[in-house]
């Protein structure tokens, strides 16, 4: 175990775990805000009950998302101090702006939202959750500004061994940023829809004794969730396609790795459905190919060659130095990409079927329990898809931290010992496991409650600080 491998493992573990909850809370905040706006608009009490019921799930995800986010800001300095020295001039500003513009808004307004039910006018109360949603959406913009620079550096000069900013506007105009931001936001909102639809399906399946009023709320949620997931998954897919077109030009190595293309293809590139990349001999094995398909996917045309990794590696060795190889972990990228796309396709399919079959006239969905189970299980798929997506983005950057400028090897803190890193890895792992167990148990407990009864308990033994009575 080296400091590099331990620091990398810790970064992967903490970011993946954090990113389970980030799109979860961004997405559910948006859907909850929609629900409350419907209540304000229609004055239909069932929307209010819906908002409160699902709002509790959002709050749990927000709590875990916030605390795991603090680690992220600290660990650039803690584990990657040489990276921080090299990049601080550029990387720090978006991070500080994220705190100033986004975190203050979301944390202040979420406090207002939780504690002012029925204390302020419904419209103002809905404004609070929209501000929370706005804060979380813009936080993604700032952190992705920083990430996009690492993928595609712009607006800088290298001076005295560090990257220094010369044009802040260029950072915000980075095309990489707008592809990433769109992709992340659309999928986060989609995730909010999928999670609520899936959990509502679980309730309809499990709570056979539920009152008509409760079933009505679940069914409404199911349809709202499926509509959102369908719309945003389709937009996400289109944007993802545009992003890949961009990757072919800007990060050809990453693109080639997601398709395991080692040798440059002919004019009509075949697409490998499955295969195994032999990363020692730099060739693809056991591959099942579809002729023309890669050209169609890459260029929307039957002809168009894709540059292979072997050729790119030779180019990079010439450009950046011969000491290292520039292949990313090909199998990881190849399969992560397929998992991500598979999840997106599955969500579009299941949302479409679910929406058609749950129409007012037919309602046949609720009689097909196996189909309901499929929707329910889909709750967990976006977590997989998101992680796979980030694997493509981040592993595709290997061996660079900042593309073409600074390697992962150079980035790590030189003075943090293996023992310290091992300690922190173990402690974070145990802490995250405990939080996950507690979080799941509490979500299940909230779900067991009757959504029609969430307004106010008649008697109470102890004061619930998250209850409006105690305000």
């Amino acid at each position: 175990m080296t400091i590099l491998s331990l620091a990398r493992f810790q970064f992967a573990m903490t970011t993946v775990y954090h990113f389970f909850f980030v799109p979860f809370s961004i997405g559910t905040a948006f859907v909850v805000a929609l629900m409350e706006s419907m209540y304000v608009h229609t004055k239909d009490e069932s929307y209010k009950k819906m908002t409160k019921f699902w709002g509790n799930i959002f709050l749990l995800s927000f709590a875990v998302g916030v605390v795991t986010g603090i680690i992220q800001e600290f660990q650039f300095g803690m584990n990657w101090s040489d990276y921080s020295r090299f990049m601080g001039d550029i990387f720090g500003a978006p991070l500080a702006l994220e705190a100033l513009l986004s975190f203050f808004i979301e944390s202040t307004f979420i406090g207002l939202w939780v504690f002012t039910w029925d204390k302020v006018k419904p419209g103002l109360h809905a404004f609070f959750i929209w501000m929370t949603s706005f804060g979380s959406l813009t936080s993604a913009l700032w952190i992705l500004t920083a990430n996009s620079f690492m993928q595609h550096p712009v607006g800088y000069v290298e001076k005295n061994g560090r990257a220094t900013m010369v044009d802040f506007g260029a950072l915000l105009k980075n095309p990489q940023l707008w592809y990433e931001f769109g992709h992340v936001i659309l999928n986060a909102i989609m995730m909010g829809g999928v999670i609520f639809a899936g959990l509502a399906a679980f309730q309809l399946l499990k709570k056979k004794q539920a009152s008509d009023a409760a079933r009505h709320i679940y069914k409404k949620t199911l349809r709202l969730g499926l509509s959102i997931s369908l719309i945003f998954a389709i937009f996400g897919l289109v944007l993802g396609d545009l992003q890949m077109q961009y990757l072919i030009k800007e990060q050809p190595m990453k693109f080639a790795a997601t398709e395991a293309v080692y040798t440059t293809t002919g004019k009509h590139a075949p697409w490998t459905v499955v295969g195994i990349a032999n990363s020692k001999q730099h060739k693809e094995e056991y591959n099942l190919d579809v002729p023309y398909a890669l050209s169609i996917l890459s260029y929307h045309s039957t002809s168009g060659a894709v540059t292979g990794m072997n050729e790119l590696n030779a180019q990079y060795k010439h450009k950046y130095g011969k000491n290292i190889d520039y292949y990313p972990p090909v199998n990881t990228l190849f399969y992560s990409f397929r998992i991500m796309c598979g999840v997106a396709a599955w969500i579009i399919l299941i949302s479409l079927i679910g929406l058609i079959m749950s129409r007012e006239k037919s309602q046949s969905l609720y009689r097909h329990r196996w189909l309901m189970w499929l929707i329910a299980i889909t709750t967990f798929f976006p977590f997989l898809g998101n992680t796979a997506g980030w694997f493509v983005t981040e592993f595709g950057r290997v061996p660079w931290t900042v593309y073409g400028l600074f390697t992962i090897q150079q980035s790590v803190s030189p003075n943090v010992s293996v023992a310290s890193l091992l300690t922190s890895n173990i402690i974070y792992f145990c802490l995250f496991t405990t939080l996950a167990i507690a979080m799941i148990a509490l979500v299940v407990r909230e779900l067991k409650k009757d959504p029609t009864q969430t307004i106010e308990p008649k008697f109470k033994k102890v004061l619930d600080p998250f209850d409006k009575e105690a305000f």
Partner: protein
Amino acid sequence: MSALQLLWFFLIGVLFAGFFFLDGFDYGVGMATITVAHSEAERDQMVQTIGPVWDGNEVWLITAGGAMFASFPFWYASLFSGYYLILMLVLVGLIIRGVSFEFRAKSPMPHKKIWDWTLGIGSAMVPFFLGVMFISMIKGMPIDVNGNFHATFFDYINWFSVVGGIALTLLTYLHGLNYLSLKTAGEVEERSNNYAQFLYWVLYLGLIVFALMLIFMTDFIHVHPVGTLTMLVVIVILSIVAHAATMKQKELTAFIASGLTLVSLVALIFIGLFPRVLISSISSRYDLLIQNASSTHYTLTVMTIATCCLLPFVLAYTIWAYWIFRKRIAMPVITEDK
């Protein structure tokens, strides 16, 4: 040293001062939930005083960290990697405290007890380890020519840093007690006030020890004799003012005075450090200075413009939120179920 560098050194100080003033009482209230409360109902009453605001208060720390990264990347990189394990413990404290608000509100007894304890313990861990960090930092750490720490256990944990950690924990605890006296009604108000009255005597003892150690174990008194002595006197005076106010039940005065005590402590540290940001115990040639630890002029300009545009709004809605939650929290009338 340019004016912008000076401004950002000052602003980092302001952000840490704001953090200790605001989140300081959240830690104090958190500790009080396991020391002052006699029942679960009282604990809920206390938690409710900070429930709507603690998250916003914590963002001051996040902003301080982010702003340090942006304006003094070399300070940020050396400090955060140098205090690796200490900051890991700060993070553990922040995490177990942060989740406890939501988790305890949604947990049934007896599971709720777990989150009561994480709230209390987490709230003590954060100020204690931050105190250890800041105080060992001003004593000077073995920093090499590249700005990397090569410290051993006793560089981090020694009499001075432990006294500093305890002093900071005690200050936040007192600040929290004063906040509780101000924001609650009934027995909790009275008991918090009594605790504070007694604990100020302990604080005086701690302050004397701390002041002596500061004078003999750091170079502050040589580098900035006037500033250091002035701030020490201010800290003592503010503590006495707060103490007197708790005895006269002037709750708002006591709260503001205890908050300003924390602010003065941050000011003392920043004045003593100036014009350095980190002190090397190996050689003063390896000290990190404001002028060579900072970002470029361009980045500082961007940050200054952004801060000037955004900070007024942040302050406005933060004050508005505090105004909305201005009422005292009373004990609820307990109604037996059915």
